[in-house]
């Protein structure tokens, strides 16, 4: 068994509880093994520790080395990279609170390849869903890896679109890399381990505890070169990532939303504070161009609305269909809402239902929870 790995895992456990102290201890004693070998007296004498921390050390020592962990990592094909290793990601090394260990399923992002993080609210609107899909897909086509947190909503939608179009994507988790959270991400999780990686600073088997998510956000921003916020409310976890990104000197872009749309308030505020306008993928790729592949500029500029299918220039045949297309282009709605918006006293509701059903079968509209939208 790799003894060194055992000591490192032991140190990583303590590192999560008190990173600053551990960092200083590691500097002072040189290695994880040296810390493990400190006896009780040495720990008691160590001036760096207060009582609580000392207690923590002693009880960790009592628990012993996490001997079952390496086996567990081996089984799932997980790798663990330590700060002391030469292949530790350079982007993280610069962080003042760089994780001591990184666990990874799949691979780590390439060092010299620029990547983009796409983040946003967990409970997104239809607009957010489409925009996230658009960026995921277009970035995959352009060969830019997509970094995100694999959370429900924008994160996983963007990552899924990316891997579905053959792109590379990396998920940074707030739990152990062998813990699938949320469980609906099982499929995405599997794909990421093949087309990218799932990365976490937390030990295998760690639960998705609430405090871990804001902290992992610093890794999302650290791994990327440019951050896109797709949809965020005024108060949103995305702002934590933005804050980290600004501290780390990364470009922040936001997708503009409608004024008064609560799900876009956060984005619009970012824009007013000077964030880049992520209104099409080329905008983002241009920002990356100095650092990236030459082929970027050969893309023809395409309006975002066209790409995400909100603007469909092809007219639907039929009079009622045409009116519906106009209405649905403005905003989705339930059959009842559409009936009211059409405002035709001559028309019966059942006629509208019939037409909507026809459009649904033709794939022109989608019905989600009773709301119809352009398909």
């Amino acid at each position, binding site marked *: 068994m790799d003894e060194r790995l055992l000591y490192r895992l032991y140190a990583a456990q303590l590192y999560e509880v008190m990173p600053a102290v551990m960092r200083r201890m590691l500097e002072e004693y040189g290695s994880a093994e040296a810390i493990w070998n400190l006896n009780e007296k040495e720990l008691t004498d160590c001036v760096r520790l207060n009582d609580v921390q000392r207690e923590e050390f002693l009880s960790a020592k009592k628990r012993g080395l996490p001997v079952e962990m390496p086996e567990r990592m081996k089984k799932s094909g997980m790798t663990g990279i330590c700060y002391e290793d030469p292949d530790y990601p350079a982007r993280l090394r610069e962080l003042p609170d760089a994780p001591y260990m990184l666990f990874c399923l799949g691979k780590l992002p390439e060092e010299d390849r620029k990547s983009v993080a796409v983040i946003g609210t967990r409970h*997104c*609107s239809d607009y957010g869903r489409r925009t996230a899909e658009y960026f995921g897909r277009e970035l995959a086509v352009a060969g830019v890896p997509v970094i995100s947190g694999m959370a429900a909503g924008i994160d996983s939608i963007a990552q899924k679109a990316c891997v579905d179009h053959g792109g590379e994507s990396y998920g940074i988790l707030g739990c152990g890399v062998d813990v699938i959270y949320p469980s609906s991400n099982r499929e995405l999780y599997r794909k990421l381990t093949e087309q990218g990686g799932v990365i976490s600073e937390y030990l295998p088997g760690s639960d998705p505890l609430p405090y871990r998510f804001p902290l992992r956000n610093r890794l999302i921003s650290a791994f990327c070169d440019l951050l896109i916020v797709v949809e965020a409310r005024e108060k949103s976890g995305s702002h934590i990532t933005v804050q980290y990104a600004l501290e780390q000197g990364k470009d922040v872009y936001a997708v503009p939303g409608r004024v008064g749309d609560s*799900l876009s308030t956060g984005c619009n505020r970012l824009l007013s504070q000077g964030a880049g306008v992520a209104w099409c993928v080329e905008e983002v790729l241009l920002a990356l161009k100095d650092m990236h592949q030459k082929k970027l500029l050969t893309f023809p500029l395409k309006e975002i609305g066209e790409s995400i299918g909100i603007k469909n220039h092809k007219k639907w045949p039929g009079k009622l269909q045409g009116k519906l297309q106009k209405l649905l282009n403005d905003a989705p709605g339930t059959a*009842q809402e559409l009936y009211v918006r059409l405002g035709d006293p001559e028309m019966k509701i059942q006629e509208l239902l*019939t037409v909507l*059903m026809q459009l649904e079968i033709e*794939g022109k509209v989608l019905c*989600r*929870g009773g709301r119809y939208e352009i398909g």
Partner: protein
Amino acid sequence: MVVTAATGALCGIDCRLITVEVDISNGLPQMEMVGSLSGEVREAQMRVRVALKNTGIALPPQRITVNLAPASLHKEGTQYDLPIAAAMLAAGGFVPKDGLRDCFLAGELGLNGEVKPVCGILPMVLQAREAGMKEVLMAPDNVSEGAVVSGLHIIGVRDLEELITILSEDEETRRKRCVPDEPVSDEENPKADFGDIYGQEGMKRAMEVAAAGFHNLLMIGPPGAGKTMAARRLSSILPPITEEEALEVSKIYSVSGRLGGGGLIRERPFIAPHHSATLQALAGGGRNPKPGLISMAHKGVLFLDETVHFSPAALEVLRQPLEDKKVLVARNNASYEFPAEFMLVAAMNPCPCGNYPDPQRCRCSREQVQRYLGRLSGPLLDRIDLCVELGRVELPDYRKAGEADPDWYSVNMRKRVLGARRMQELRFAGEKICFNAQMGVKELKRYVALGKKEQEYMDTVYERLHLSLRSYHRILKVARTIADLDRSENVEVGQLQEALCYRGVEERYWG
């Protein structure tokens, strides 16, 4: 010497004929009762004895034995007081024995000799008629309930004194005491009208379809969209209850003592249990089981408001009646069958906050929404033919309400429903079923024959929407009803399309 009188014991909502046998013979002066009696029946001897004393009857100082036959049947209730008293009077020679011939009695006695009403008079009178009885004696308060059954004489007895008079009278004098049969009143109670609801044409249409085919309906919508309001108006468009159905429903109400003194139930019941209702309250229970709320909704509407807040066990109890149209309640001595053929109307919010899928108002996560909707179990959803989503009432709708579309007044909706009913009556003339909702696979094959175009359409839809075979059948049933509403012999593509819009929630929320 033995004297007998006839009465009845309730078994579920039916009644069994009981013979009260009284023997007075020499021995120690005491009274004994036998025949598998429960507490309240055993107490009858005290009531009867004291009531007789207070009426001025001095029982002979002899040994009195009372037997309720068949002795093997467990007897509960207080309807035995009156027949026991009558038989004792005849055995003691206070009234002629002939007075009890072809006479059925049921009533409770007070210590002063007064006759009090009992539950379940209707099934008892029906049983009496079946057994060939000519007269039924009961408390005056029960008379209006008993009088709905024609073909025999209903006589109200105020107290024991009157009982002695009646039993001593000859047949003709007695006949004069009979109350006339309850006349059937045609007037209907004024009901709330669908015209009061602003907008929501989609929901009204779904209600119309549900009422026409007796389909179960699920309404999903935000608070204040008018779900409860609409459900309460459903009875205003349901087809009227038939005489036969009315009798069956009234029996259930009679047994549970909820007929309220009036005659037959002449309206389809509308039962809206609170969501804290227990399993027993819904299915029926008690040591001697009484029908539960779902049986009270027989031939009518069972409306579950805030469906997901019902306990899962209470919801699961609906599965059997939805499938078999009856509830089987088993107790240690017997199992009772209560009919429960109702139209289920369930209402719920789409998510904990009620505003899904409106991202402006709803802050529930996807998981929360799924968990919330997931509280309705699949097997229950399988039994629901129509599902309709309601939006928030828009202000333009509200303003328009004054000039509501006459199409959506209850009276016009009912006209269309009745038209569709007639189509179904003709169609199912020789069958056991009478509504489209009751069609099984066999009936679907026979009565919902799709043309070539329609068949092709359904084939594409089946693939495209990933329908299950079960929902495919549901759609055919609903389409048949819509076609009936359109007075169309064959089901056409348009009707299939509308039916598809009401397809189950599982395909649209979880699909």
